């Protein structure tokens, strides 16, 4: 019996392909597939949710609405809410809301700088944002933007999209198991969702501008709003456009001018003073 | 374990040139070991750049030596002078702890 020790071919047990090559196409492939799955799921879920009849959505959101209605408001806040509702009614008349849809505006005394549209045609306007707007036109632009969201059924479709995308991403993360790097793949999945969000914001902007132009004859107030919002967002240079939920402030401002040119609206004009009920919310002296 | 230091240990079934006089059954030795948290932190850093976890290697080696030692102690207690057909079984109990089992056939060689 002969005993020998030749060297076997060691390359059968490992791959000689460069690891970065495999990494690149794996990452690209998985990201593309996940993004595509999210985009599809989000699109169909959003469309489906937006087709639920408005009265069903309103019933579903009745609890939210009641919560807002039943809050105790100071007399100051109650006047503000009444002023906002009057303004909203004027705008809604110019916006051709679908049959059976109505919008309810609520006012919140918190310092939050925001206004939002939620399910059931409910819109909430926060004090923090009101304090920073200087004219009725500006307040009207924000209101019209939120009413446009409600008109276009954005809260419902966003909810449907969010649920569908959540399901897809949880399937992906359970598929990847305990490994590291789940986060970049989830990020790739979020990109289509953020794009849908930005598209919705653009659509709402367009409707809002049309309404403001119809009611006030010009879009000067809108330009003020987007300038203020742009300042609030901070330095734009640091932001990556595709990772934002809203279009960049500079883009929205440019869009105002572009739409004004296309639709023949006046870019500037005399702006209305804030109604007294809203003006009295501002602190006595404000350093900009 | 004085008597076990000259017990022959082999994972073959026979010893060349010597005959088995008596088979004394299966003997085993097992141990569960964990290492302390300090080494675990260094291992966590190694997890990023890869490579050998020397602390864990030492842990397993010590555990194995102890398991074999216990097996030999059992063999000595039944009067064997060799343990043949030795095998090992390793189980990971929890993060950072492992059980090693060493077992074999205790025999008396002539």
């Amino acid at each position, binding site marked *: 019996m002969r*005993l*020998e*020790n030749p*060297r076997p071919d*060691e390359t059968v*047990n*490992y791959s000689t*392909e460069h*690891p*970065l090559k*495999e*990494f690149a196409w*794996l990452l690209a*492939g*998985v990201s593309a597939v996940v993004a595509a799955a999210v985009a599809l799921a989000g699109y169909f879920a959003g469309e489906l949710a937006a087709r639920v009849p408005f009265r069903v959505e309103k019933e579903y959101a009745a609890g939210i609405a009641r919560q807002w209605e039943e809050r105790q408001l100071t007399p100051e806040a109650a006047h503000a809410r009444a002023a906002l509702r009057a303004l909203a009614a004027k705008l809604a008349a110019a916006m051709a809301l679908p049959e059976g849809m109505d919008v309810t505006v609520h006012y919140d005394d918190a310092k939050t700088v925001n206004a939002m549209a939620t399910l059931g045609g409910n819109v909430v306007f926060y004090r923090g944002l009101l304090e920073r707007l200087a004219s009725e036109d500006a307040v009207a632009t924000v209101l019209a933007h939120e009413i446009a969201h409600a008109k276009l059924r954005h809260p419902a479709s966003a909810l449907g999209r969010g649920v569908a995308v959540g399901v897809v991403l949880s399937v992906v993360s359970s598929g*990847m*198991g*305990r*490994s*590291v*790097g789940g*986060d*970049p*793949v989830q990020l790739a999945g979020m990109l289509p969702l953020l794009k849908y969000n930005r598209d919705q914001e653009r659509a709402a902007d367009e409707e809002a501008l049309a309404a403001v132009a119809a009611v006030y004859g010009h879009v000067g107030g809108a330009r003020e709003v987007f300038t203020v919002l742009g300042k609030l967002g901070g*330095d734009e240079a*640091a932001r*990556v456009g595709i990772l934002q939920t809203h279009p960049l402030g500079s883009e929205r401002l440019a869009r105002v001018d572009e739409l004004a040119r296309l639709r023949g609206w006046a870019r500037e004009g005399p702006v209305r003073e804030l109604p007294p009920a809203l003006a009295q919310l501002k602190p006595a002296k404000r350093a900009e | 374990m004085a008597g076990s230091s000259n017990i*022959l*240990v*082999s*994972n*073959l079934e*026979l*010893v*060349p*040139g010597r005959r088995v006089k008596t088979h004394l059954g299966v003997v085993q030795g097992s141990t569960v070991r964990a290492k302390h948290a300090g080494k*675990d932190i260094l*291992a966590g850093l*190694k*997890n*990023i*750049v*890869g*490579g*050998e*976890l020397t602390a*864990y*290697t030492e842990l*397993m080696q010590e555990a*194995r030596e102890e398991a074999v030692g216990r097996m030999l102690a059992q063999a000595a207690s039944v009067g064997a002078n060799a343990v043949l057909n*030795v*095998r*090992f079984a*390793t*189980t*990971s109990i*929890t*993060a*950072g702890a*492992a059980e090693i089992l060493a077992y074999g056939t205790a025999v008396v060689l002539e």
Partner: protein
Amino acid sequence: MQAFFEYFDLLLFVVLLALGYGIGRMNEQRHYRSIRQRERELAGVLAFGIRFPPDPKTPRDCVLVTGSVVVSSDYFKQFVAGLRTLIGGRMAAYESLLDRARREAMLRMKADAVRHGASLILNVKVESTNVGGGMRGGVPAMEVFAYGTALKPPREAPRAA
């Protein structure tokens, strides 16, 4: 500076990935060089899986020799492996890791035999265990353990051959 805080998670991921790839690859090349060199040096030590010695009648001393190593994968390999679990197929990243670990364990076993003065190892077995703890919080680590029986050279017979 603001950008740093906003995208901190992403930046951290990229840095860890780069570290894992760069240092991990360097370590792997170095380890393979060392393995190949030691395999050449220890080519005189023969290791077989056969259970019967070539000359069963000649008395020879037996001793159990072992070699073990615990390896951990790096961040880059783990990320690529995670993507692989979605797509399926050959995990080249871990194949090279385990190949290295097996050969290292075998070399340590051979070195153990040399320490005992033997150059023939029989009934070689190789076992792998996951010692990192599969649950979260454990470092993913793999132990490879090689063992066999080393036969020392036969004692010189007192009479002439």
